[in-house]
């Protein structure tokens, strides 16, 4: 039986759902916090949930409600929100060769967050081509649904929830670094990748610690790319010098 004939879209979607479950450890606490912060900033539960469903980009949503609460002009709020989300422009092209063509992408790409991108870029190459569309659908819908429900719960009962289980909000987000570590670990077998990855992780960590969390991802990745190309350049020059000496 061919691969396409034995393929079940529902089973592939459920595989996507199952593999995206670790993302929830990071999504739910942040969504709860967003719901809480948004209601404290004067938004209703419905409005906070609508922002999560429509914008669906964590850091920029916090900035959005924070700037609105301080009375910033709306054009500046929109400009800053979009500026933070500019990093998303490099995610799509990286997945373009891994996903089949479909008329559904214009709305499905709404689910392409930092975490879904990281998971998809790691898992899609390991899956048969026929499974990839359904897998992406399952993984991204689970993440989106959890984000929306988490926001609604945070807006209605966030304060009571965090008061009752204060440690849960600290422990659950650890699923994210643990998941991303398992994604980058295979690259550490190559020296040049190891240097570039190490440089990127360190840069992102430092930028977040000094309060530049909003721009840490693109800046750190740029640092890593610089490191990657410098190492290549250095290796080539070293090899040329050795050839000349011998």
């Amino acid at each position, binding site marked *: 039986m061919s691969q396409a004939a034995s393929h079940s879209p529902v089973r592939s979607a459920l595989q996507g759902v199952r593999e995206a479950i670790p993302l929830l450890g990071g999504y739910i*606490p942040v969504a709860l916090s967003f719901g809480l912060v948004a209601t404290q900033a004067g938004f209703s539960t419905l409005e906070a949930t609508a922002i999560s469903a429509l914008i669906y980009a964590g850091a920029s949503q916090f900035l959005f409600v924070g700037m609105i609460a301080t009375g910033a002009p709306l054009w500046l709020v929109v400009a800053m929100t979009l500026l933070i989300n500019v990093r998303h422009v490099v995610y799509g092209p990286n997945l373009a060769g891994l996903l089949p063509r479909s008329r559904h992408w214009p709305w499905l790409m709404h689910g392409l967050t930092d975490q879904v991108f990281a998971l998809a870029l790691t898992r899609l190459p390991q899956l048969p081509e026929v499974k990839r569309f359904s897998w992406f659908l399952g993984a991204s819908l689970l993440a989106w649904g959890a984000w929306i429900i988490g926001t609604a719960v945070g807006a209605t009962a966030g304060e009571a929830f965090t008061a009752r289980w204060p440690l849960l909000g600290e422990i659950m987000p*650890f699923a994210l670094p643990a998941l991303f570590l398992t994604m980058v670990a295979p690259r550490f077998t190559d020296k040049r990748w190891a240097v570039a990855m190490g440089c990127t992780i360190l840069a992102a960590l430092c930028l977040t610690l000094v309060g530049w969390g909003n721009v*840490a991802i693109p800046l750190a990745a740029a640092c890593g790319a610089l490191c990657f190309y410098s190492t290549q350049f250095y290796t080539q020059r070293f090899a040329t010098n050795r050839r000349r000496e011998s």
Partner: protein
Amino acid sequence: MSTALWIAVAVSAIGTLLMRVVPFLWMQRRLNSESGLNNMPQWLGILGPLMIAAVLGVSIVPVNPSAVSWIATAIGLSVTLLVWSRVRSLGWPVAAGVAVFGIVEVAAFIW
């Protein structure tokens, strides 16, 4: 929420969606074109994994940074890496890392 605020939400949402969709569709068209531009630029292929590393760097910072949470993070990541080196999958290393991180945090909270 006023009409102006709803418009701001809508513009932010549409702008973010376009940043996700347009480059994806552009690259898919480019990869399937007959103009000879069939390969993804090398720099883009390098930037992808580095973006994941950057997301890792950002997420390493604990929710409430303190000596205990940093130690718990270091132990949790070490356990994650150890389990990953044995099983080479995504699920178990994450579960083990979160469990150990949680045990360290709870133990420190109790003491």
